[in-house]
């Protein structure tokens, strides 16, 4: 098992290095892309600050809390994009039939399609984001237990995000549609930019249990603020595990539908 993990880490490192080299070959494009992301991040942050200065609270949360929700959303979103960027490049493999080459290699096809090309551009933005999270969280007076719970729930959020991306890949094999599906996932997860308490029922319940954007983005921040009970935490981990299980089942089903039509 240890040997297997070592092998997969080595492959991941190699693929990520290749991805970085490919990024360096298009420096201008990468610069604009990163600049665009940073502008979007800061404009939204600025908007939240102005909004909360005018209204004092949003769904009962003050400025620091709302900013913390926003930063947590960004942390999960950026780590997901860093890890799962290969999903955005999956469609041509299916349409052109080059997915055959992935299937014929002695490496797990899901691993290759999901994690085979980390986006280094996103990686650069993670450390400053973590510093910002620590800075804002100080004003929320977390205790040791809530910090641990926050880290675990962020990890659970990443598991749900991985499940979403596996669903997108599987749907891509079945329908040949990936580009818009992954962007719909991005739009759905964007609903977690603000605490899901701003939504009314039944949408709020839908975003907590069916498309668990709330579990993914809002619950970690709530845990750090000591605003979730033990039952909700257990349900969150159950949803995370269940989602991943269903996604892998769907992936296995989708593989049986792959026809290698274009090759």
């Amino acid at each position, binding site marked *: 098992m240890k040997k297997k993990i070592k092998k997969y880490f080595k492959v991941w490192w190699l693929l990520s290095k290749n991805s970085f080299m490919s990024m360096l070959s298009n420096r201008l494009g990468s610069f604009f892309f990163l600049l665009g992301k940073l502008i979007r991040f800061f404009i939204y942050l600025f908007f939240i600050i102005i909004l909360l200065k005018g209204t004092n609270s949003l769904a009962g949360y003050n400025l620091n809390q709302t900013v913390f929700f926003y930063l947590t959303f960004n942390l999960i979103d950026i780590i997901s994009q860093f890890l799962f960027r290969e999903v955005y490049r999956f469609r041509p493999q299916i349409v052109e039939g080059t997915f055959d080459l992935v299937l014929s290699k002695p490496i797990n096809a899901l691993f290759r399609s999901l994690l085979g090309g980390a986006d280094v551009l996103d990686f650069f933005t993670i450390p400053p984001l973590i510093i910002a999270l620590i800075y804002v969280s100080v004003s929320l007076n977390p205790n040791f237990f809530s910090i641990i719970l926050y880290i675990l729930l962020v990890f659970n959020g990443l598991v749900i995000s991985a499940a979403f991306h596996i669903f997108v890949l599987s749907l891509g094999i079945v329908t040949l549609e990936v580009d*818009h599906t992954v962007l719909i996932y991005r739009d759905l997860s964007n609903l977690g930019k603000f605490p899901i308490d*701003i939504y009314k029922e039944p949408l709020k319940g839908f975003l907590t249990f069916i498309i668990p954007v709330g579990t993914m983005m809002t619950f970690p921040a709530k845990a750090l603020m000591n605003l979730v009970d033990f039952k909700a935490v257990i349900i969150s981990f159950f949803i995370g595990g269940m989602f991943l299980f269903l996604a892998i089942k769907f992936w296995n089903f989708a593989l049986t539908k792959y026809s290698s039509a274009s090759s």
Partner: protein
Amino acid sequence: MKKYLQVLKITFQQEFAYRLNFIMWRVRNVMQVFLLFFLWESVFSDPSRQFFGYDRTKMITYVFGILVIKAVVFSSRTIELSRIISDGTLAMYLLKPINFFKYWFTADVASKILNLSFSLVETTLLFIILKPELYFQSNPIYLLLFFISLIIAVLLFFAIVFLINMFSFWAPEAGWALPFLFIVIIGDFLSGSVFPLDIFSKSAQNIFYSLPFPYLVFFPLQVYLAKLSIPIVINGMFISLGWLIVLWFSMKIVWEKGMKKFSSEGI
């Protein structure tokens, strides 16, 4: 005229050929409205409160207005220009006995008609589901000014998109990046498509108003909501027309320079 009608028809057929893509694109637009609607609903949980000069009805109308106006202004086929310059297929268009600018503008019009039709259906459905209180403008002068500002917005967006996509003449490998930065990021925020620009300070608003972006979405919506006096609206229209002239001439100049650079090497 006949050949442009054919372009219109062909563009319709192309849009329908990729139905799933089109439907997904519309779903995304609706989802963005959901976020904004519930965000502002939460802010205006007390209906008697006013924020940034908006009451609840006008803010929700602004959110619904974004859906419709974006369908009219931001729906565009000209965004493909960067790709056809980069991969060299531009040469095929140049060989056709058709005005290149009119060709893409006609394709844009087809895309706008289709998107507008869908956005009106979506707005009706959202209206039935969410039951929002909306503000309906009844003053014919404001309605007339609103339609004029919308036409200017359409022309402005065409010029901006055309101009930015021509960056591919000089950097074909990064041709997608500048449109991404200007249209998806800066344009989206500075046009007021995410939030109204009058939540910012007066000095920031003055800077925004001197740029072409607010005239794409924010300004037409301000006119519709009658948030500006008629002299200010007229003044804004002159600024946007000024931008339109500058961008239109820049577009022609950059095109001529780009043509000298273009080598169709991708084919």
